[in-house]
Structure formats: structure tokens, C-alpha cells
């Protein structure tokens, strides 16, 4: 299980750093100055976020929301206009270029378009950060081979990137990011250029690295599916601000901000199919018709055979209109939109029954 480790840090020394978060954004803003004839662009506005040691924080946002800027602040590829960023207890906003280079060696980064050197083999690409750090040939060999084994590319050792598939390239990218044994891994849309199946295998690899190596991962993405699969916490970025941040399961099950809800619309079966939405009314028709319920299954209630119990106990016909059932952050979660007879006089009983099971049920409206 990918449970958030939070303050249960991996640091066994028991020192004060054990509870210190790995990454802290403190009131960070970024303004790109006006170019000739243009306006200044406010990319990030007063961002405060923390990433706990050994956890995975997913930042989700649309393109232009400021995600790329945010992630590049962590390794100093971008400088903030205001605020501070702490990485492993060091304020990196105060460091000069030389010190930053040292810090960057403890922060790995993977990219959407892999950014592998076409002139180097798989081995050479993974060796590159070690060469830059000035390690010896023997050290490099001893480090690269196990990494290639970890990402399952031992047999591609002497191939060039042009000979690899997208998923294989990203595995090289991940091995390369891990070469200098970083404490933090930054993932910049690492799966956005991959097909769905490859995306899953890369995400599982990242989750494995997180749990086995205890690496703290900050990932940015525009896909909720990525967050739900491996992140522990999620921050929703909208127009340069964090509009919502919390435990992935909580945010998925109870989104509070419209931007979050719109990301989730297609992800959790919350959106009503058009054929229902168009016919939905506020009041029940005088005779017949159906009340449209949305039932949210989560936790224990998700495993109860609710619908068949409804039919047996109350004698109502249940009409399934839409729904999805899956898991979020490793916990069962589903949404079901059902139609129940509107004028049977038993709606209140049904609602009570669902509430007793700890399920959320909401009447969305009525259809004739």
C-alpha cells in the first residue's frame, strides 16, 4: 500500500529533520516581466505547499496554470519573484549558481519528452549525471548496471534512444534521474506523451521507487488518472494559485473548488450523461416519473450490495442510469446515478437507509 508516510520519516536518526517536510513552498510568487509590447505575466501567486518526506504530491492543473514553473522552482531552474523554497531544510532561493549545482545532484528530474541524448546509448545516458558529478568509471559502472536492472532495461544497455519505444525512453529517463541517488524526484508530466498502458507501467514504477527507495516525489500532470493511481496528496493549481490541496481520497470524494470538480467530472462518474441531464427537472411530475439519485460509495459502504437490498427491503425498482466503480489512492470508490419511482412514498425511507450505511445520497432532480 502506498500509505502516506507523512511525519513517519525514513530518517532513523531521530533528529529534528525527521519531521521536517522535504519540500516547502512558502508564499512563493513568480512574475515574468513584461516583454516588449506585452504585459507582465503572473505565473504563480502566493503558493504555500509542503511535500512530506517519502510521500508523493501530485500537482494538477491545466496548461498555463503554472505547473511547469512550480516544479522548476524546486531545483532552481527558475527563480521565484517572492517567497522561499526549502528543500531538505535548505533555503534554495538564497543559493548561488555553484551551490545550486550541488543541490541539483540530490534532485532527480524526469521530463515529458524524456530529453535523452541521442548521441549516447542507454548506458551513456544513465551515466551522464554521474560523469557530471565527477564519479570514476568504475563507480559509474557499478551504479548504472543495477539501475538498468531496476527499470528493466538491462538488455537495452547499448541501444540508442532512437531505437527505443516511448515507455522504454521514459524508463531510461527515470534511471538517469535516480543515478546520483537523489532524495527528491521531480516528474514533469512524465507520462503525458505515453499511451495509457505504458502510462500505467511507468506510474507503477514510480510508485515502487517511492515505496522501496523512500524517494519523495513531486509530480505535475494534467491527468487526474495519474494522481489517483499513485499520489498521496494532491494540490490543484488554477491560474497560478493552489485552489485546493489535501489527501487524494478526500479531494476525489469531496472536491470543493469548481476547478477540481471539472477535473474530476469524467474521472469519477460524477458527470451526468447528457440524456439525463437534458431531461432533469426540479420537481416531481404529478404521476409516475423517477427521482434521480446520486449515490457515492466509499470505504466500507462500497462493499455492501446496496441496490439489491433496496429492492428487497422496500420493494422499489432501481434503474441504473450511470456510474463508475474503481479505486482512488488504493481505496474503493464509486459513484452511481440511479432512478427510483418518484411517487412511491418511500424515498425518505430509502434515503435513511443509505445514510445509515454511511453512503452519501443526493437527489439531483426528477425525470418524467
Amino acid at each position: 500500500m502506498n500509505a502516506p508516510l507523512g511525519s513517519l520519516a525514513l530518517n532513523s536518526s531521530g533528529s529534528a529533520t525527521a519531521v521536517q517536510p522535504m519540500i516547502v513552498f512558502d508564499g512563493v510568487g513568480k512574475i515574468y516581466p513584461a516583454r516588449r509590447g506585452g504585459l507582465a505575466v503572473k505565473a504563480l501567486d502566493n503558493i504555500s505547499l509542503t511535500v512530506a518526506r517519502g510521500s508523493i504530491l501530485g500537482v494538477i492543473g491545466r496548461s498555463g496554470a503554472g505547473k511547469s514553473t512550480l516544479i522548476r522552482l524546486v531545483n532552481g531552474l527558475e527563480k521565484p519573484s517572492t517567497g522561499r523554497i526549502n528543500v531538505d531544510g535548505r533555503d534554495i532561493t538564497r543559493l548561488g549558481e555553484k551551490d545550486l549545482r550541488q543541490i541539483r545532484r540530490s534532485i532527480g528530474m524526469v521530463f515529458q519528452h524524456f530529453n535523452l541524448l541521442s548521441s549516447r546509448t542507454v548506458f551513456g545516458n544513465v551515466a551522464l549525471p554521474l560523469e557530471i558529478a565527477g564519479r570514476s568509471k568504475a563507480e559509474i559502472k557499478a551504479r548504472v548496471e543495477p539501475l538498468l536492472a531496476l527499470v528493466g532495461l538491462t538488455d537495452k544497455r547499448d541501444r540508442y534512444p532512437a531505437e527505443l519505444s516511448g515507455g522504454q525512453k521514459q524508463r531510461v529517463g527515470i534511471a538517469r534521474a535516480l543515478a546520483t541517488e537523489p532524495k527528491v524526484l521531480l516528474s514533469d508530466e512524465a507520462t503525458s506523451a505515453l499511451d495509457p498502458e505504458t502510462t500505467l507501467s511507468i506510474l507503477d514504477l514510480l510508485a515502487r521507487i517511492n515505496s522501496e527507495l523512500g524517494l519523495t516525489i513531486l509530480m505535475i500532470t494534467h491527468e487526474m488518472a495519474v494522481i489517483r493511481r499513485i499520489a498521496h496528496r494532491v494540490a490543484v493549481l488554477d491560474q497560478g494559485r493552489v485552489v485546493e490541496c489535501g489527501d487524494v481520497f478526500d479531494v476525489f470524494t469531496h472536491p470543493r473548488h469548481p476547478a477540481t470538480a471539472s477535473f474530476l467530472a469524467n474521472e469519477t462518474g460524477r458527470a451526468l450523461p447528457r440524456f439525463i441531464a437534458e431531461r432533469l427537472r426540479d420537481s416531481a411530475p404529478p404521476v409516475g416519473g423517477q427521482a434521480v439519485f446520486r449515490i457515492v460509495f466509499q470505504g466500507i459502504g462500497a462493499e455492501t450490495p446496496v441496490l439489491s437490498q433496496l429492492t428487497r427491503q422496500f420493494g422499489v425498482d432501481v434503474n441504473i442510469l450511470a456510474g463508475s466503480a474503481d479505486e482512488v489512492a488504493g481505496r474503493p470508490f464509486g459513484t452511481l446515478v440511479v432512478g427510483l419511482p418518484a411517487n412511491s412514498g418511500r424515498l425518505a425511507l430509502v434515503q435513511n437507509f443509505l445514510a445509515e450505511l454511511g453512503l452519501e445520497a443526493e437527489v439531483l432532480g426528477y425525470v418524467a
Partner: protein
Amino acid sequence: MSPEIIRLIYEATLDTLAMVATAMVFATLLGLPVGLFLATSRRGELLAAPLVNRLLGLVINATRSTPFIILVVAIIPLTRLIAGTSIGTRAAIVPLTVAAAPFIARVVEAAIREVDHGLIEAVRAMGASPLQIIAKVLLPEAKPAIVMALTLTVVSLIGYSAMVGAVGGGGLGDLGIRYGYQRFMPDVMAAVVVVLIILVQGVQTIGDLIAKRVNKRARQV
């Protein structure tokens, strides 16, 4: 054609090759670093020095816009200073170098600029210094393009070397003008042209081969 003429053509070919090769070596030594600097010294780049970049650009443009034959004459004092003479094959190397170096600088600049910016960002994120970025990313990644650029330069130099014949430099151009044109020996002229065509063809083929070998981008699975 008499054996003597054939020997003349043979010697002129060797002269041309020597001139082009020597000028090429010096021009590359000068042009490659300058091209690298041009490609990395604009505002916000690795070795940012916008003012020097612009000045250097001006000098290069000035050299490149001077017709070669005028350049040859104009730099005679410099040629004398370096080669000790302004006539002959050895002297011709100086203007050839002066003409080729800015050309190389520009084509190398273009080749380096073609390197994907994402790669530079990736190695910066690894903690690379500007020199490491140049040595480990820019040059290796631009290698196929640089090889093509240098091939292009050799071909141009072969053409230029024929022109230095006009001012007393040796080689095939000189032979063509003195025998083919001034002594009305069209067969010599034809032979010179044929040898030049073969040279250019050969250089281009070799350059293409090397470029293909160092290019790992388009390999088949």
C-alpha cells in the same frame, strides 16, 4: 596530353589539397570555438555576453560580405606578416583561412542552435556547469550537423583555392588559368575542371558517410 602536362596536373592537385587541408585545419581551430561562443552567448544563454556576441557577429558579417578575390588583395600585408610572402601556395593559405573561419563559425553556430533546448535543461537539472553542458551535450549532439557543415566548408574552400591562383597562389586554379586560359590549352582546362569535380564529389561523399556514422538519431530498430 603530354606526360609533362599530366605531371603538372598531378602536382597542382597536391598543391590544392595541401592548401585546402592546411587552411581547413586553421579555419576550424579558429571558427569552431567562435561558432560555439556565438551560439551560447546571447542574452540569457549559457555564456551570456550579448555585447561581445554582437561585436563578433559584426566582424564575421563584414568578412563574409567581402568578395573573396578582394579579401585576398586586401589582406596582403597580413599574409606577408604570417607567411613571409604574398605569392605562392604557402601564402594562399592565409586568405583561405581568413575566408573560411567566419564561414565555419556561422555554420557551427547554426548546428549548435539546433540542439533541443530540453536537453540543456535536463543536464542543467543534473547540476552541470556551462562547460560541461558544452562538452557533454552541445558538441556531441551537434556532431552530425557540424560534420556536414565542415564538409560544406571544404567544398567552398576548393572553389576558393582555384581563385587564389589568380594572385599567384599555386594549385589547380592557377594551372587552369596559366595553361588552359592564357596558353589556349582547352584540354588542360578540361582536365582541371574534371579533377575539381572529382575532388568535390569525393569530399562530399566522405563527409556524408562520416555524418551518417556519427548520427545516432535515425538508426533502425
